[in-house]
């Protein structure tokens, strides 16, 4: 089959690799119909995530048609399914607590060692990411093997196009959990750093959960425009003094909750960020947590810090004293995708959540390396790329759709958060 494979920093290629096979009884094989490039794929592309190996198949946001099933899979051939990027057994202590991304069994014994060494405990596995998280092949390919296929994949009813449901695999639940982790209360002002796909979904989710105001922060006008259409107030941090602006916009109080949808590759020409960038490129440190430092300073006393953004290891100059003195609460973590797929699919079917607004491009799998370059270099134009293995060429969704359609009125959709926890 054809698959997008990683060969080093800024070097991804479409190679012919062997087809996946059923190995364990709970496995299934999917024929991929849609697979997106994620912001966290850029961390791999930039070489910031340790334990990648040349030849690894990338991709952790995908959906497709079931073409083969193991003896204990509950899926049936021909079903359309979306697959969570987190691989979870559904049986262990963590899965039983719905902390699916912490699954204790999905990381094989050999690769679990590495993450146990680095993190203190073995991490749960994910598709198409580094060997720290299991070393499983990803879904930017024609086919993929899905372990524990009786637990993760969610069957999609006929009539829902791929673009409406694909993001159930990662960024939609990730944005939702980011807002949930912000512990939003009525009247809250929530500040969201980063208006990439997760940031936009976090904004949408925060408003659905009842935030009075959402302030969105980015530097790309196209992304800020999308945030504004969702109902957020926007700040281009290149234009204003961000900390002062946030304080002034909240009457000296500061945002009640802050959400880091940026992660380890924070932009911005500041002293701390330049130092962090040099260190990251020389492997003296992995993080560039400029945005996170700002968030902690900006957040109100006793406020909440939600970190869906990906970090890989150690950070320098972390404002720990500020965190303590201000009495902040931090919540973070890889998304427990399996917990959210069903209720979020319901919201999509009811028309309460739209996921298509941020897709800017469709492209064939063969164009994936080019699309990685665009996604990396032109974040203003390329707001989200969906690869379709069957497609030839590339199609730009005019203006990311936002300009063509009427302004969205997301704020009127749902006044309070629906109860998601089962």
């Amino acid at each position, binding site marked *: 089959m054809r698959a997008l494979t990683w060969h080093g920093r800024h070097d991804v290629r479409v190679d012919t690799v062997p087809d996946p096979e059923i190995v364990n009884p709970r496995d299934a094989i999917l024929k991929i119909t849609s697979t997106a490039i994620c912001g966290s794929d850029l961390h791999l592309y930039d070489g910031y995530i340790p334990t990648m*190996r040349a030849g690894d198949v990338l991709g952790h946001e995908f959906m497709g048609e079931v073409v083969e099933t193991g003896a204990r899979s509950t899926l049936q051939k021909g079903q359309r399914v979306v697959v969570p990027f987190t691989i979870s057994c559904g049986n262990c202590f963590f899965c039983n607590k719905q902390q699916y991304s912490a699954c204790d069994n999905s990381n094989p014994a050999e690769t679990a060692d*590495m993450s146990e060494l680095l993190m203190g405990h073995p991490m749960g596995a994910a598709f198409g990411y580094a060997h720290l998280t299991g070393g499983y092949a990803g879904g930017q390919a024609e086919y993929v093997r899905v372990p524990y296929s009786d637990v993760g994949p969610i069957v999609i009813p006929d009539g829902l196009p791929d673009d409406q449901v694909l993001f159930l695999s990662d960024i939609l639940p990730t944005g939702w959990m980011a807002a949930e982790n912000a512990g939003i209360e009525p009247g809250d002002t929530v500040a969201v750093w980063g208006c990439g796909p997760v940031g936009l979904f976090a904004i949408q989710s925060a408003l659905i959960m009842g935030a009075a105001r959402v302030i969105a922060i980015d530097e790309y006008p196209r992304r800020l425009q999308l945030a504004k259409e969702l109902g957020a107030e926007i700040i281009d941090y290149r234009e204003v003094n961000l900390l002062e602006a946030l304080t002034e916009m909240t009457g000296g109080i500061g945002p009640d909750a802050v959400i880091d949808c940026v992660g380890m590759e924070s932009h911005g020409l500041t002293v701390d960020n330049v130092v962090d960038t040099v260190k990251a490129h020389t492997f003296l440190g992995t993080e560039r947590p400029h945005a996170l430092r700002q968030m902690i300073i900006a957040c109100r006393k006793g406020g909440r810090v939600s970190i869906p953004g990906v970090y890989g290891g150690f950070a320098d100059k972390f404002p720990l004293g500020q965190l303590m003195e201000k009495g902040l609460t931090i919540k973070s973590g890889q998304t427990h995708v399996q917990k959210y797929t069903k209720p979020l699919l319901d919201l999509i079917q009811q028309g309460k959540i739209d996921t298509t607004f941020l897709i800017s491009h469709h492209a064939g799998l063969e164009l994936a390396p080019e699309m990685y370059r665009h996604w990396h270099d032109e974040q203003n134009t390329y707001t989200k790329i969906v690869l379709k293995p069957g497609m030839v060429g590339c199609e730009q969704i005019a203006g990311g759709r936002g300009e063509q359609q009427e302004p969205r009125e997301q704020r009127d959709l749902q006044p309070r958060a629906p109860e998601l926890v089962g």
Partner: protein
Amino acid sequence: MAEAQPNQPERIKERDSSIDRATAQKALLAGGIAAAAAGAAFLLARKSNATAPDGPVISDAPAWTLKKATKQADRPIAAKTLLIGRPRAELYAVWKDYRRFPDFMENVEGIEPADEGASRWTIKAPAGKTVTLVTRIREDIPDRKISWESLPESDIETSGQVEFEDAPGGRGTFVSLVMSYAPPAGRAGQLVAKLFAREPNIQARHDLRRFKQLMETGEVTTNASPSARPSESPAQPRV
């Protein structure tokens, strides 16, 4: 099984320092990107300079978490405890039926009954060779504990035990696998040393982790899947 004993964190770091080197080596070969991980691991694995207190050990932590500076006669060379979300009796029953060992013990090729209730193990060694181990059960407390030791005709002198203890809060069972062995002599011994001495701890930990996977999920987890590395089969684990 006491938690959060003051001695424990340091001990765990020390124990991992040997894995650190192997892991870093492998990762560097893979492309150099893991330098960051190795650096992080180095920071984590740095040994504490604190000396152990004099007098009898007062910590409730298991013996294998003791620092080397702490005097203790029988320190096992490999030990690991994992929570497994199944009842004690069920786990004991599988461990009692040694025919299932090859399902989760990677290096075990086969086990057959030998004379007088002993078992003969065929264990994989480097270069396609195998070594033989003959063991007898030393102690068998139903649903609680099985311990074994090797008989003189074995290529390796080893002993071990597996213990099953109810985890608090109905979470399942704490399963502890403890192994000791004496360095063998002779050619076979060298072979075995290569196999065991370098990483008995890793092997025991992997075997126990696979046992947990098998008992909780019904299968042993594998990342078997395609890659652009020609040597790898999509049906074999990717290491």
